[in-house]
């Protein structure tokens, strides 16, 4: 710019800016007198004069100064570089500073002002929940703690990827692939909803896509972690943290946030993936109140007219708009339903979004009555009864019949989840299951010939079966009922799977039902039939994997099926036969790990496989094979625990393997090696019990560990230390028994511990005290026997107590 133009435009700017807007044009026309360059310059300056002051930008820039320098230690981590920041804190690329492992992690240092005691308490509690959200499309929360100065931090899996919208744009991803990515995101959100975690902050920048095309959700539940407690006032921090274009109307209003909130934000995300722009545009000025108003009051532009390039099919448009409804009740009832509708579109079937509102009305009814979780049992009863009545009336009205069917599928699960953790809710849960089954049984009679209904019923039966007695999740312990439900699922699917209409999804569903159903059957002694079911499941998964060799998830499923079969063979006392599927599982897992991306789930599976193989070799007396299997399993599991110290599951895995390995070492006479292993298990179990102090099983695990460690100390002729372990174990057993006198398992082990302590006292020369213990143990075991609480396999305890007591009599 020439000094001349600068000077002249400045003079005119000073004059014009003082004038009312309406008069500026006339003034400038006169003053510039046809000098276009001058006029243009003054207009440009005037248009800038209303923008936000530069000062506020500087204040933002100042905030970035408070970054911690590289190399700073935070807990056991060392910061490598700052990679992002926002209202809630700063994210760093970080690495373990103690060299425990060389993996990059993302460390989020939560902003200041959030370090009150109440917050930190909540932080610890919630962190535990978030750490258990294991899903391939969720960036795992690995660790967390507080800095020396008490500032909380979180450690997450580091995802090297691009934002989902950027990825779709840059890769020119075709529609179908965009939708598949979206469905993967939905499955992650659905998974978290089942764990009662709402994301609350879904937006493109929270979904990254890695180089191999995997979508990963970040910051799961962080909004909840950092948001206020239910009912509390919203803080400025939370408002600041919202991204207006993706926040739901209820969030902006400050109303209750539910799973429907995530449905809305997913709708907004889908909108972006279809049109490359958000549903509500912010004006150029960046005026946030305008966009808030739009989210609350304006309908988004129809995606078909908003999309710049590709055409948006009407069915997809209906799906997006359904998810984006202002009223939470008017949206899809669950993320699962949204995802299924997208899948229906992908499969070329009619979508639910374009159907009428009977389900909507029924949902509204349910929600109106869903006043509190405590009342859930009543709601379930009335809802299900209502559905049954409704179904009788509507039997012939096909369309409504479909709505009802949909309700059954999602509600069964939602209610179950909602009341699962309420104390004393067993009766309510049983009622849910009972009514749900009655309902499904009626529908099944009408299902013949309707493939879609058959599929959904089979899936619903599986879900009911899981709730009844899937040993791999919290359940009602009704194994017989679970098996019956699984059989129903299988017999519904059988004709479909053997027909030419069968899809891969049908075969996968059948395989899963065969494997899980067979697994449950195996635990109740249904040996040969259980194995036949599992073999069939494995064969189906093998065929699915062979049909698509590049599909990693199918091979992972096959590996999982082989593992279930191997485990059941082993527990049926067939270690030789078990080794074949286990070996195949191991090979597949190793292949998958070698091929590709770092995957904690695969490593966890491999650890478990090796552990089961170790047990099988041990059962066959093949020590030279058992040892390396156990040791590799331990290496993997120790590493995983180190990487994710918050995950109780990984610690439980490791504790289990240590127990098996230690027992084997002890049995083969290697007491000092066994002692080291048991001491490690003890430390782990202490940590688990400390995190969950009311969990009696966790307390018992500590007592068992103390007991085993004490036995080895006794064998090594270190009686004083052995007695210290036994003493602590005794106190823990007593605590559990006094809290729950009906816990015969604890009482049984308490009696067994008395024998061990008696022997140690005897070895230390305290014969009198030893005999007292033997006497007490025998009396307790006899009492248990009288009550029918002494399992046959533990009969030997009583025999030993009597034998020890007899020697007392002889001596005394």
């Amino acid at each position, binding site marked *: 710019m020439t000094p001349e133009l600068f000077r002249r435009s400045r003079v005119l700017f000073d004059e014009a800016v003082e004038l009312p807007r309406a008069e500026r044009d006339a003034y400038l026309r006169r003053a510039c007198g046809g000098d276009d360059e001058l006029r243009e310059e003054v207009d440009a300056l005037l248009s*800038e004069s209303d923008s*936000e002051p530069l000062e506020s930008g500087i204040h933002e820039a100042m905030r970035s100064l408070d*970054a911690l320098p590289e190399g700073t230690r935070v807990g056991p981590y060392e910061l490598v570089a700052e990679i992002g920041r926002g209202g809630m804190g700063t*994210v760093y690329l970080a690495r373990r500073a103690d060299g425990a492992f060389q993996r990059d992690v993302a460390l989020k240092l939560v902003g200041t002002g959030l370090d009150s005691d109440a917050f930190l308490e909540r932080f610890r509690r919630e962190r535990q929940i978030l750490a258990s959200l294991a899903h391939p499309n969720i960036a795992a929360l690995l660790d967390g703690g507080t800095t020396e100065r008490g500032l909380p931090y979180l450690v997450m899996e580091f995802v090297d990827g691009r*934002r989902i919208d950027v990825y779709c744009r840059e890769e020119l991803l075709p529609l179908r692939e965009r939708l598949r990515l979206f469905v993967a995101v939905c499955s992650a959100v659905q998974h978290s909803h089942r764990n009662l975690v709402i994301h609350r902050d879904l937006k493109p920048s929270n979904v990254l896509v890695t180089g191999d095309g995997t979508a990963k959700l970040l910051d799961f539940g962080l909004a909840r972690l950092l948001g206020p407690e239910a009912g509390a006032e919203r803080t400025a921090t939370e408002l*600041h943290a919202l991204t207006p274009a993706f926040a739901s109307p209820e969030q902006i209003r400050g109303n209750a946030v539910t799973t429907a909130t995530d449905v809305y934000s997913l709708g907004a995300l889908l909108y972006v993936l279809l049109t490359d722009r958000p549903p509500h545009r912010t004006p150029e*000025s960046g005026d946030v109140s305008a966009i808030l108003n739009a989210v609350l009051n304006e309908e988004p532009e129809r995606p078909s007219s908003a999309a710049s390039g590709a055409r948006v099919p009407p069915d997809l448009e209906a799906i997006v708009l359904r998810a984006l409804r202002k009223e939470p009740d008017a949206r899809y009832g669950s993320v699962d339903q949204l995802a299924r509708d997208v899948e229906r579109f992908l499969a070329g079937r009619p979508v639910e979004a374009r159907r009428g509102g009977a389900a909507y009305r029924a949902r509204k009814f349910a929600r109106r009555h869903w006043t509190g979780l405590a009342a859930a049992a009543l709601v379930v009863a009335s809802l299900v009864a209502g559905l049954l009545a409704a179904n009788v009336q509507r039997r012939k009205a096909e369309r409504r019949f479909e709505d009802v069917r949909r309700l059954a599928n999602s509600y069964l699960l939602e209610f179950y989840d909602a009341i699962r953790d309420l104390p004393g809710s067993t009766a309510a849960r049983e009622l849910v299951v009972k009514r749900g089954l009655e309902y499904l049984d009626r529908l099944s009679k009408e299902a013949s010939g309707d493939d879609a209904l058959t599929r959904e019923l089979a899936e619903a039966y599986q879900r009911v079966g899981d709730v009844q007695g899937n040993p791999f999740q919290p359940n009602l312990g009704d194994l017989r009922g679970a098996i019956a439900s699984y059989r129903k699922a299988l017999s519904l699917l059988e004709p479909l799977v053997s027909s030419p209409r069968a899809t891969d999804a049908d075969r996968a569903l059948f395989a899963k039902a065969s494997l899980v159903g067979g697994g449950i059957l195996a635990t109740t002694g249904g040996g040969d039939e259980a194995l036949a079911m599992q073999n069939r499941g494995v064969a189906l998964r093998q065929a699915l994997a062979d049909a698509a060799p590049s599909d990693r998830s199918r091979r992972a499923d096959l590996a999982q099926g082989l593992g279930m079969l191997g485990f059941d063979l082993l527990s049926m006392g067939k270690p030789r036969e078990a080794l074949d599927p286990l070996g195949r599982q191991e090979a597949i897992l190793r292949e998958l790990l070698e091929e590709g991306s770092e995957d904690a789930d695969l490593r966890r599976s491999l650890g478990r496989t090796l552990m089961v193989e170790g047990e099988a070799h041990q059962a066959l007396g093949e020590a030279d094979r058992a040892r390396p299997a156990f040791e590799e399993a331990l290496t993997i599991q120790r590493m995983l625990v180190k990487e994710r110290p918050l995950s109780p599951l990984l610690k439980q895995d490791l504790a289990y393997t240590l127990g098996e390995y230690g027992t084997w070492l002890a049995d083969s006479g290697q007491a000092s090696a066994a002692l080291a292993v048991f001491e490690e298990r003890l430390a782990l179990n202490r940590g688990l019990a400390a995190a969950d102090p009311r969990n009696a099983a966790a307390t018992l695990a500590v007592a068992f560990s103390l007991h085993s460690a004490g036995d080895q100390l006794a064998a090594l002729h270190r009686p004083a230390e052995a007695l210290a372990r036994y003493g602590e174990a005794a106190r823990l057993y007593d605590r559990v028994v006094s809290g729950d006198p009906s816990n015969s398992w604890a009482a049984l082990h308490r009696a067994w511990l008395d024998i061990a302590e008696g022997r140690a006292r005897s070895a230390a020369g305290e014969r009198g005290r030893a005999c007292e213990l033997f006497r007490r143990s025998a009396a307790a075991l006899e009492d248990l026997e009288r009550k029918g609480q002494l399992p046959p396999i533990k009969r030997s305890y009583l025999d030993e107590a009597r034998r020890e007591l007899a020697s007392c009599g002889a001596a005394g």
Partner: protein
Amino acid sequence: MGSDKRGELDDSGEVTALLRAWSRGDAGAPDRLLPLVYAHLRRLAALQMRRERANHTLQPTALVHEAYLKLVDQHLSWKDRGHFYGVAARAMRQVLVDHARRRHAVKRSSGAQYVAIEVADVGVQPRTIDLLALDRSLEDLAALDQRQARLVELRLFAGLTVQESAEVVGCSSATASRDYRHAEAWLRRQMRGARA
């Protein structure tokens, strides 16, 4: 804490002496002052961070003022104080620009796209400004109008009010206020042009 304080006090005699030398006509004084104040401001910013206070947002005003209280003998003349703020504003600008430059470099080299918590999202304009562009535009402005550039520096980076900055520069508040209004519009336009 005690040792920190002593470290800061060590500089203070030197800063005051340099400011006085400047008033006496020592032309080399400003060049020796700048690195001293720069280092001090950086230390203050880091210290501020470590205090982790609830009302945490750092403000240039607060930082520069704190530096003033710690570095400068309170009996300085009005003119010396003006010199100090001039240097402090320049140092603060340098601190921010250097920081922005480093962050830029890190982002480029790590290749990571982890910008998850950036408040700026699709359709919402980022509130942070491009400091590097501002720095360049301010250079351009200084070439056209030295006084405007100094006023902007004092206001943005030392947090002085229009009145205060007018005193430091030596003009009336009305002039300073008009200068600043124009400078701000001009800079924004210049920065926009640099982005496009």
